[in-house]
């Protein structure tokens, strides 16, 4: 049963990925004007366009282009930037364009995860252990306020207060890649802070709700009535049942973070993958857009898959069938 559930999930994950790739492919194909148009720009004559198209393989039927593209993707060949993010980058392999940007994005999300997860888990747990306490009310109130504000507002607000008014941090997070130490930290501070705030308020709320739900279940009351010490109730009876849902919550929130990253990188002009993608859309560099979109979607689907696995694996009925 367990194995079947895991296999089914995996299959669904792969299928979703394929569907998404089709959508991305179609989505980018309907954008007006193809690469040939862009490269040739003003100088385009019908003949030169046709010639370039056949050179790039753009004149073949869509489904063939799709499979070619998918095959290249699967073998790690992300293709060649056809327009590039500027005249200088035309013809650069996409993987070279993406690598530094991906590193930047991963660095930022890693910092966010390292701060947000322990922080929100412990605060959420504390709030659940002392429901109705001043701490709990403070946490509930703040997080409720924060999750109802969209990311870009949080970001704008932080810029206003910390950069414009107090002049503590730079308002943009542009880095060239050579910054180190304090300078790098300062540049990263605002985007990271924005994401930490957005992600932790969700994780906190959901951790609190999950643990409270477990703590109010009859088997916890039974443990209290059996004279089981509080520490053991939390660590053995409650946490055992809450771990699955909590991992699920974390993975889901990291998945939501993917869209947060897009917004935050744009707002702060942080040279990450999302910024690259947004720029690529502006220059109609379709292969680059496709590659970036695939990476984002794959991450999203992978995290959702992890979330699903967590809830399947934590279900004792599936782990110990009759």
């Amino acid at each position: 049963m367990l194995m079947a559930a895991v296999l089914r999930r995996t299959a669904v994950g792969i299928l979703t990925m394929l569907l998404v790739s089709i959508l991305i492919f179609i989505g980018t194909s309907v954008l007006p004007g193809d690469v040939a148009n862009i490269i040739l720009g003003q100088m385009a004559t019908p003949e030169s366009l046709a010639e370039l198209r056949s050179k790039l393989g753009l004149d073949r039927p869509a489904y063939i282009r799709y499979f070619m593209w998918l095959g290249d993707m699967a073998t790690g060949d992300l293709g060649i930037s056809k327009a590039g993010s500027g005249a200088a980058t035309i013809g650069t392999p996409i993987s070279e364009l993406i690598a530094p940007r991906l590193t930047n994005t991963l660095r930022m999300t890693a910092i966010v995860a390292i701060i947000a997860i322990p922080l929100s888990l412990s605060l959420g747990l504390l709030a659940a252990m002392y429901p109705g306490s001043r701490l709990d009310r403070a946490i509930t109130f703040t997080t409720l306020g924060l999750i109802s504000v969209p990311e870009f507002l949080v970001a704008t607000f932080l810029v206003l207060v910390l950069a414009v008014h107090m002049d503590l941090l730079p308002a943009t997070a542009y880095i060239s890649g050579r910054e180190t130490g304090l300078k790098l930290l300062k540049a990263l501070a605002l985007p990271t802070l924005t994401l930490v705030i957005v992600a932790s308020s969700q994780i906190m709320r959901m951790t609190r709700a999950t643990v409270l739900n477990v703590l109010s279940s009859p088997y916890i009351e039974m443990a209290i009535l059996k004279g089981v010490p509080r520490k053991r109730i939390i660590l053995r009876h409650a946490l055992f049942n809450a771990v699955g849902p909590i991992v699920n919550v974390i993975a889901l929130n990291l998945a939501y973070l993917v869209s947060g990253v897009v917004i935050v990188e744009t707002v702060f002009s942080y040279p990450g993958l999302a910024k690259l993608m947004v720029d690529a859309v502006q220059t109609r560099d379709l292969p680059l857009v496709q590659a970036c979109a695939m990476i984002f979607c794959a991450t999203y689907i992978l995290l959702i898959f992890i979330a699903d696995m967590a809830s399947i694996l934590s279900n004792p009925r599936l782990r110990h069938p009759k």
Partner: protein
Amino acid sequence: MAALLEIDNLLIDARTDDGTMVPIVKGVSFNLDRGEVVALIGESGSGKTTIALSALGYAKPGLEFSGGEVRFDGVDVLTMASEERRELRGQRVAYLAQSAAASFNPALTIGEQVTESAILQGRMDRDTAYQRAEILYRALELPDPDRLGRRYPHQVSGGQLQRLMAAMALCGKPDLLVLDEPTTALDVTTQIEVLRAFKSVIRQEGAAALYVTHDLAVVAQIADRIVVLYGGEVQEYGSASDVINRPNHDYTRRLMSAVRPPPEAGQYAETTGEHRREVPALEVRNLTAGYGTGNARTAVKVLRDVNISVERGHSVGVIGESGCGKSTLARVISGLLPAQEGEVRLHGDTLHPDLKRRDRSDLQKIQFVFQMADTALNPRHRIDNLLGRPFEFYLGLTRSQKPEKIAELLKMVELPPDFAGRYPEELSGGQKQRINLARALAASPEILLCDEVISALDSIVGANIIELLKRLRKRTGVSFVFISHDLSTVASFADDIVVLYAGRVVEQGSTNKVLAPPYHPYTRLLISSVPELRIGWLEETMETSEAKAGIDRVVEITEVGCPFFNRCPLAIPGTCDKHVPPIREITDDHKIECHRSDEEFRHWASA
């Protein structure tokens, strides 16, 4: 010597939404001696559980002790240090909850949970505790005692889990057991076995017990003394035989009259047979149904070859133990679960098996009233909203026509019109069930499928709902399919009874015929398992041959032969387990499916 437990003028308050405190236990006092079983009896909301939990110094969230003392062995548990109280729990006073299924942690093994308290409190080391647990499993007649501890709660049946909770409570050798409705959720045949196991274990262990229940017949089997509660106050307090045989208080008498009398032939005045020759309102023919994907051959079969017919304005009761397929039958009739074979007919016309493919007038004619009123009503919708929807959907009423119709409907289920403005959570269990009924009636149906509609209610409230159903049937001419695991409930309402066992109809006929000999062996087991309001009934019943053979064995769905074979005192090895039994027409409105003949039944009944 002082009593083991002395409850002295106990006061408990509840915090309401606006922060004020209202008293819910108002000065209750009684004692419990060593080795004695005292029953706390009263309807839901009378404060039984709250008082019982005070013996462990525990108040549910939202409740507060506001006065009085609860002395255990001379020490007040309400003012104890919390560490002392923790040691008291599980070690000297143990608790058995109403729902074992909810009280066992799904992620931990049974063995760990049974022994946990005894080991933590330092009463025993791990090995001794596991050995003791095994002894208790044997004493409670649980299957596979040497390996049971390694299983998880979902790997045993409900009745077994309930007994495992007794093992959990007894493992640390407590002086006092607090039992909260420990058999209410069980089938009669399981209840009787669990009751007997509790009683003998309590005696063996020399423990005292506080037994909470709303069922006077159960109390009569197990209690030495009885405390009758109403509205948080003690109404009557005395020895079991005094309270049962000579009730003093008015409320006690009401409780006794709400105990459904043991089902007996002739108690129900049969509706006249004038409709009998018409086309039945509802007919189920050769129905086979089950769950699982795949085609009819690979899917799990729950119902096999079921035939039922319901005359207009009549009610047919469907009875059987948990898991026998009662709810499945209702779901097939309503189209929620399409049948694998066979058909459902409404006034002679075959209905499409799938709900989604039936037309609106067919949908309107068959309405479903669900088991759990609590979960069936969306808590976010106001009552007028809930009741208004079917009017709109089936009858196409406009907004302005609705209020009048809703008021009419509320009147029909005997609720005041201002209930239209309430939300479900502002209603009691009985009132919710009335709203649930009203919603089904809004569609002006011809058939009402009622699945365990009063099982979650206490006896007095439940009896009122039955009376309401009877009046509704008379007024509207609706036909009922009335499903319940409680034979007495069915007997008080149904014209005909269908006895279902492992998905087969083993007996059916008019209520008077089914409840009189000759019986199918399974019907006889069901009838004899209903507790009677008589001290000593339990012991007598356990001596009978059908009890010995059939009580608390599990239902086995068999492909060949008679499904009741493994529990039947009349079973004929070689025949019953090999061949599907024939249907015997005892009279034209009474059929029994069994290899034994009418004469053999009669002989057995008189033996």
